[in-house]
């Protein structure tokens, strides 16, 4: 048959538009609860934020004052300069000791300048050739010794093994 919907509307009521309250005021029975809930959530939020701030503060390393502590006083500068100079002098003395020891090495001393040459910063020992007279002397010595060895005669001293009878 059909359906016709209708509602009972007071005559003095304004026709609802987009600004008409959906809920009538007399129907807001939970307003207090909503306010309490809102307050509680705010409190909780605040509490959580406070916890975060406190945790951060505990782990915070404040370096704003380090720069002022790290600055050397003039007295410290003078003392450190003196210490470093002493170390440098000590190293130089050790270097001089090493140089003296190197100079004492055989064949590489200033007394034998003909035996070493400085090539590209490296001291090398030049092999000087053996003198001709030394070579001939050695040859003569060897020849004479060989002749003397060849002249060694084995003397017959008789039976070497004697049997006892």
């Amino acid at each position, binding site marked *: 048959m059909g359906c016709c919907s209708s509602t009972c509307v007071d005559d003095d009521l304004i026709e609802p538009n987009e600004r008409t309250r959906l809920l009538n005021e007399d129907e807001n029975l939970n307003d207090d609860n909503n306010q309490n809930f809102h307050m509680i959530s705010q409190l909780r939020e605040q509490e959580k934020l406070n916890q975060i701030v406190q945790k951060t503060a505990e782990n915070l390393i404040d370096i704003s004052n380090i720069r002022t502590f790290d600055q050397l006083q003039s007295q410290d500068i003078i003392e450190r300069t003196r210490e470093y100079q002493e170390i440098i002098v000590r190293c130089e003395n050790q270097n001089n000791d090493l140089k003296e020891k190197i100079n004492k090495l*055989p*064949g590489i001393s200033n007394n034998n300048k003909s035996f070493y040459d400085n090539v590209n910063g490296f001291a090398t020992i030049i092999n000087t050739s053996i003198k001709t007279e030394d*070579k001939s002397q*050695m040859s003569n010595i*060897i*020849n004479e010794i060989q002749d003397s060895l060849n*002249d*060694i005669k084995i003397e017959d001293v008789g039976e070497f093994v004697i049997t006892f009878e």
Partner: protein
Amino acid sequence: MENQFENTIQKYSSMENVKGILVTDNNGLCLGSKGNIKSNSAAYVSSLINRATEISLDSSKPIISIDTDNTNFLISSENDITVALAKQKMNN
């Protein structure tokens, strides 16, 4: 019977600027020594000359010269006889 040999090495060890002489065979056996060179150096002398012969580029026998601050050692070998002569070094 080795008098002549002894006299020969005595003669050379007594020469001017000679501090010692050593005679060895190619096996390192000391045949005789006089002066500052010890007889137990014979093996080293023989070994040195053998090594030098191995590395020499030609067939000629090498002569080894060893310089120290005060002494010049000359080592030479011929026909299985090796002689080491220690001479006083002339300072330049």
